[in-house]
């Protein structure tokens, strides 16, 4: 079993890759969600590692359609394309907006590291410049969506500790309920996360991210499809509970293991349109 486990990929198991890795983050001070004490930590970590193993892919590409709905129900559509080279905490991701028209060409480069937080740069064509997204700025929303910059990164399993909270049912599927807490020194906006992983295929069903004892973001995975042998949630919904707004992401034209070149995942590459 691989020693590297991605954090939570938007798409998690099944999506096979980091896209939005909804952080497992959390501070050591986080308290356990339920009153019941945590069960075997080894078992919880093994579940997450198996989830990763089943989504392992050399590369990934998809077109994402986003619908951002505010608390009054007003919806704004956005689109992006995403390419990822590598997998599971040691990968590079280029995300480019294709709609709405005014943000066409805006690109984000994410370089994920197994042992530390990712590096992120944003390219803005109107300025002809790239800008590094500093670590302390990553709790902010990503381009008006309900995902934060931190949610875009993928992290190593060893940056977190896991505990099995029990079992639950999500969308009529039996799930393991696992808590992840970032290890000491891990920088994250979230104090902890609770993950629901389906027992039948190890796909992520839900993630709740906490700040102290409050759930601040909830990510639901639906419409599971098997793509090139990898169970992938093709619809994801991130609910920002503080703003009461939601972003739905639908994955289209999803492909795994396409040939990609390393030089297309650099600062020079995102400068190209």
């Amino acid at each position, binding site marked *: 079993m691989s020693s590297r486990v991605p954090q939570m990929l938007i798409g998690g198991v099944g999506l096979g890759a980091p896209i939005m890795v909804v952080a497992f983050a959390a501070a050591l001070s986080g308290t356990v969600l339920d009153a019941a004490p945590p069960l075997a930590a080894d078992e919880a970590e093994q579940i997450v590692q198996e989830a990763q193993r089943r989504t392992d892919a050399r590369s990934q590409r998809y077109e994402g359609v986003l619908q951002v709905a505010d608390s009054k129900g007003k919806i704004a559509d956005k689109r992006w394309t995403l390419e990822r080279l590598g997998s599971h905490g040691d990968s590079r991701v280029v995300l480019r907006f294709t709609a709405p028209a005014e943000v066409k060409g805006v690109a984000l480069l994410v370089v994920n590291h197994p042992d530390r937080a990712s590096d992120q740069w944003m390219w803005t064509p109107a300025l002809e410049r790239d800008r590094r997204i500093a670590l*302390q700025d990553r709790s902010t929303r990503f381009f008006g969506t309900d995902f934060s910059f931190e949610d875009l990164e993928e992290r190593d399993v060893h940056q977190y500790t896991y505990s099995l909270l029990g079992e639950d049912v999500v969308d009529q599927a039996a799930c393991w309920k696992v808590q992840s807490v970032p290890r000491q020194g891990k920088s994250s906006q979230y104090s902890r996360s609770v993950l629901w992983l389906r027992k039948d295929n190890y796909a992520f069903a839900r993630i709740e991210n906490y700040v102290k004892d409050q759930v601040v973001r909830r990510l639901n995975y639906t419409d599971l499809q098997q793509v090139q042998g990898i169970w992938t949630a093709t619809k994801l919904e991130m609910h920002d509970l503080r703003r009461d707004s939601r972003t739905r992401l639908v994955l289209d034209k999803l492909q795994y293991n396409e040939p990609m070149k390393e030089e297309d995942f650099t600062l020079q590459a995102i400068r190209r349109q």
Partner: protein
Amino acid sequence: MLAVACSTGTPAIAAAQTFSYRGFVDLRALVFPQDSPHDDTNFVGDMLARGEAFYRPTSWAQFAFGLDARANSDDQVDTSFQVDLRDRLALRPSVSVRRLSATFTRGPLTLDAGKQFIRWGKTDVITPTDRFAPKDFLYVIDGEFLPVTGVRTVLQWGANTIDVPFVPRFTPDRTPLLDQRWTLLPADVTGVKVMAAAVNLPSDSQAGVRWSHTGSYEYSLSFFDGLDYRPNLRIAVQPKVPSIEIAKEYPHIRSYGADGAVPTRWFTIKGEAAYVTSSTPHTDEYVLYVVQLERQTGEWVLVGGYAGEVVTVSRGQVAFAPDRGLARALVGRASYTIDTNRRVAFESAVRQNGRGVYVNAEYSHARGQHWRATVNAAVIGGSGDDFLGRYRQNSYGALVLRYSF
């Protein structure tokens, strides 16, 4: 950009071949409530249509083409309707090629050839090392970058990058028009004819090299040898006519620069400095530097800093130099995203001696997939002997309607 992969052929080819485009049409209305001493135009209408296309036939080559079309109610646009490739006109061309370039990549090497944008530096308000980025300064405080024509070679290995631009043909700043409010004349020259001398643009080339490192900290060192795209002004008074003739001369300069960004727990600290020397007579030598703090928190993006200047050799230079003019000032910008379609922004610059101030407030609202309306009001105040203060009669309001495609 529309990075739409072609759906024909093998998956690998499909991934490589892309065609994308983007553009917009801007309609802008400006209101200047006050007359300036030699310009009583209070309303200006402006139109800019911009289209850019990018074609990537293979994974190692890309071609880019972009065109601007303009119209203006205040005689700021050349009406010869010739397609302009050079960006050397005093007026904005009615049709100009904004981008015409080819990009080739092979491993760690990237080569861009043609008309393109080259940006150096880290800071936002003033970028002292940004030596390949002339601007259109018809409206001084709202300048837009002009492309340059040249070859840029970039070698990237690991976290290091070497960037070597070579620009054989000089592109100067577009300076304010002499008969308009952004040109500043002494009060006692009212009624005197002001003329522009014939411009002989130098044929010298420009070259530079920049090494940059991106790790936990980002830093760069750069060197530039070429022409300053901001001109020295030579003013000749002819008392018999009477008239004043203003000639532009572009000094040869060398610039030794450095910039860096250091993330801390609360802010990202960015700094940039350039030491500029010159062998051209009547041209100052100086150090221009900027230190700024940057932070995003919640829906706010906050940038604030100080721009400073130290003149090391003063030779009595008279120049059009907005970057130096904005030095010795505290500058700041704050923007707030109200929701996915709406945002507000505030921007200010205050000279450290308090003799010049600029404040701008902006509200922007997008509608649907294509439309955005922006209103802004800029207030300029100060005294007549200050770079900012001298524009105190140029406070304005603007409404911009943009259709993006």
